[in-house]
């Protein structure tokens, strides 16, 4: 028996800033995964990918990724890599730095006053 088809969407990175983008039903690129066009079979997936690959002037590296479709119809990635791509770094990557920014500014003020 053939394996059930896992729904797919097309993703890439924006040419100018590298942001993660998704191909929409309007054949445009969006930063919102909720706007992504979803392929429900192999043929639709191949079509979507070829549309994505035609728009290389705006993006880099279009490819298909597996998604699960929620009750409200929005896709969400199934692989953890794609979840990190969607949501950004899992770490609070500015937090330890922010603390020291405050410290350094305080210190700077102190040095100026001294």
């Amino acid at each position, binding site marked *: 028996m053939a394996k059930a088809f896992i729904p797919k969407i097309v993703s890439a990175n924006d040419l100018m800033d*590298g*942001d993660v983008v998704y191909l929409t039903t309007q054949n445009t690129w969006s930063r919102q995964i909720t706007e992504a066009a979803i392929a429900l079979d192999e043929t639709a997936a191949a079509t979507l990918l070829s549309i994505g690959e035609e728009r290389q002037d705006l993006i880099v590296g279009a490819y298909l990724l597996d998604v699960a479709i929620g009750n409200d119809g929005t896709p969400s990635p199934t692989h953890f890599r794609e979840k990190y791509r969607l949501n950004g770094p899992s770490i609070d990557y500015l937090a330890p730095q922010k603390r020291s920014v405050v410290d350094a500014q305080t210190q700077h003020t102190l040095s100026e006053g001294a």
Partner: protein
Amino acid sequence: MYHYNDFDHEFVKTRTAEFRSQVARRIDGALTEDEFKPLRLRNGLYLQLHAYMLRVAVPYGTLNSVQMRQLAYIAERWDKGYGHFTTRQNIQYNWPKLGDIPDILDALADVEMHAIQTSGNCIRNVTSDHFAGAAADEIEDPRPTAELLRQWSTDHPEFQYLPRKFKIAITGSPNDRAVTRSHDIGLRMVRNDAGEPGYEVMVGGGLGRTPMVAKTVRDFLPKADLLPYLEAILQVYNLHGRRDNKYKARIKILVHETGLDPLKADIEAAFESIRKTFVHPKAELIADLEAAFAPPEFNNTRSLGFEDAQTANPAFRAFVETNVAEHKNPAYGIVTISLKPVGGAPGDATAEQMRLVAELAELYGHDEIRVSHEQNLILPHVRQSDIPLVYQRLLEAGLATANIGMISDIIACPGMDYCALATARSIPIAQEIATHFEARGLEREIGHMKIKISGCINACGHHHVGHIGILGLERKGQELYQITLGGDGRENMVVGERAGPGFSADALMDALDRLIDAYLTIRDGDEEAFIDTYKRLGAAPFLAALYPEETDDARAA
């Protein structure tokens, strides 16, 4: 330190202008991504998971305060206010925009820096001992040679299309702090019987998916023969290195498949041929390089302030114990600034922190800064009597973590939080380990410990040479962490042994607890470091702790 001459300035500016035009053509559509990608990689520009990443070369890890301030300016003006210091002594910006890259490269060129050859199949940034020029155990400062290698390898017409990337490391000390044996070529300064300094030349080291310890091809190479000899090695590699399989293309595979003696014969034959016509650098150039790295004028007056401050302040004493190393001048110390605040991202520094380090280098450190492959910053020349002041300033900026060489001084690659190649995350694991052992209050008791974490098999986090190495992989749609034990990056480099099945992120901390608790129980006194206990007793007691029978069922499949 070395300052660009007219040739260097012209070369870097021309290259930056060329890349500006290439970026413009990519943006206006004249170049496709397939055409542009090799061009951007040649200029240090990667595309990662969420953004571009620019890798800037810090030649042999040496910076001055003007350069550090410029790095801070770039972080603030064109990135998110911070940068990431890497395991090859470079700095990476995680969020630059394509259109800004030419301006960033211009800003770098203004302070004699660039991003050339930080990617691609060429000779990469030459790395060195981060204590070079300051270490008490040093034969000679290796940086004049490292700079010579930079000039020789930059845009070398014969070596722009090697089978694969090529990394050279050099140290001037018998105690290897530059992991030279994990490099394509490692150079370790030694003296011959006549007392002259030269190099032990090691070839074919590497980490990655096939870790190998470099093999010695020359016990002693006179300094004057270095360039033609390296050219001979590169020539043999360029001709015979495999180009059919990316994973077998590094010189380590050539050494392995050819065998050391036949390869040595090839290298020596090439050397004999090259040396006959080799145009050696002029004596004036060598003299200029030696002069550029001459030691600063040290102030040799000692004062009691340093000892008194340690007596008065236990926190400062703890800082000195871990973060201050012996300097060749007894009135000085080498201060390592930890970029591993507990819970922080290893190697990250904010623009403000960079500026503070620049200021301290200027005020108290003869204007010298180093980046270590262990992702910390170093003030190599600080008068001992100034160290309490330096400590105070670092403390106020959250930069005085006293943990160098300890369990929270972890090397970690960017992992899947940033890197497109990663198979798992690294930084959160490092953060959890540091936080966990601080909470247990065990760091000082555990003592010397090197944990190194890579988020994929390419091993940027050097896990193979970690006393405890952690490799993040994917298994059945989950992140899985494999442990290696007993790795050692020093002169007698050892590749760690894989312990067994990997652990999920949730199970990893318990596994490390068992491992550390076992070590604390079986070590021969408080002074025996984990790695020494491992060398004395072998893997068995550690494996028993990692995989106790009662937890068999909980093992990852």
